[in-house]
């Protein structure tokens, strides 16, 4: 009897419903600068975003958990991953208006809960 049960278990269907399983949000953003020739490194970009967070939300905001997953220096396009507080990161990106005394804007291209990057990257 036990054997039969085990056999059945092997082919059993399992229905799992996950609600908000992924704690992350992913953003694809592009930085548009007034002067097209300016280039930022990935470190500078992350520091710039942290500055924006700090000016809007203070020290607590600056401690927000986010990563720059992939960054293309030529097009100034970056994939950001943020842990659980998308609204804070997004609003601070929206309100960032100047980088080193030149006007700039973050254009948020896509927002997703699924990882937009393939596994091997």
């Amino acid at each position, binding site marked *: 009897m036990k054997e039969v049960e085990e056999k059945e278990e092997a082919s059993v269907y399992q229905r799992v419903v996950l609600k908000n399983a992924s704690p992350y949000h992913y953003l694809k953003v592009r930085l*548009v600068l007034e002067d097209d020739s300016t280039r930022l490194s990935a470190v500078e970009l992350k520091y710039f975003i942290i500055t924006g967070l700090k000016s809007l939300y203070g020290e607590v905001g600056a401690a927000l958990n986010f990563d720059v997953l992939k960054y293309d220096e030529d097009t100034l396009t970056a994939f950001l991953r943020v842990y659980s507080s998308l*609204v804070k990161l997004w609003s601070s*990106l*929206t309100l*960032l208006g100047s980088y080193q005394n030149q*006007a700039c804007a973050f*254009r948020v291209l896509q*927002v997703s809960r699924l990882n937009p990057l393939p596994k091997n990257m």
Partner: protein
Amino acid sequence: MAVFMDLNVPFLPDRSDLRSVVETAAHLGFSTIALNYVFEPTAKKKQEIPTPTPINELIDQLPMVQGRSRPIRVLNRLTVLMSDASHFRPNAPEYRCFDLLAVQPTSEKLFHAACMVYDIDIICVPMTEKLPFFFKRAPINGAIDRGVVFEVSYSAAIRDSTMRRYTIANAVSLMESCKGKSVILSSAAQKALELRGPYDVTNLALLFGLSDGDAKEAVSSTCRAALLHAETRRTASGIIYTTRSQREAPQGSEDGRFESSHLYRRYRCLCCVAIELQWNKVMMSESNTPSGLYYWIVIYA
């Protein structure tokens, strides 16, 4: 499907600046924008109310809206900065040239009057200074009942951190009194880089204390309501109006009269339906009775 609108893009005298702002707005996905002409009356001398420049004179070809493959719609809007009750002249013929009419009151008395009495579409809430008065429930409820909307513009918050503080504080106190209903968010951007996309604005509105749904409405359907309100103001509260769109009679039908009488009957029928439903303010422009041309009938209840 609600389309996104930005009902406050300041009119810039420099043509290339204006062009780049309009192009950026179209690129970001705004289907409609309103060019804002600001009129600030002073007590000393009588000034001219600005007249809107037709958009085809400013920009040769309107840019396409991203994702909709149709050109952006550009409206004209007048904002009157009021510091005295005499500054707003009801029934001024100059106001008729504009699609939208807005006021920015600077005192509590004027704010009350703007909410309850004046025939306007938008009330601007100042974002660059500390709120000169408290919002009271009564006038705000009155304005919501009349269909007047409140406007919050965000570009001052991008420019300066002090302005950001005022913007958030003023917006939050407004949202508390009107509970997030009939509020529109607009840019007031002087440069193309101060414009933000509609979803960015929606997210920013969460910061101002709006709920998710209200935030999206503030850039789409509330703006549409404001436009329709402006339409009723321009047509003397008319709920039905007809305009003639020049279109040639279909080829092949030699007798155009049957076609026109058929259309005429439909038009009368719709008007009768409107009257039977007891929409008491019906305006029919009898001078425009159909004569073989194509008619659009728009109903707004």
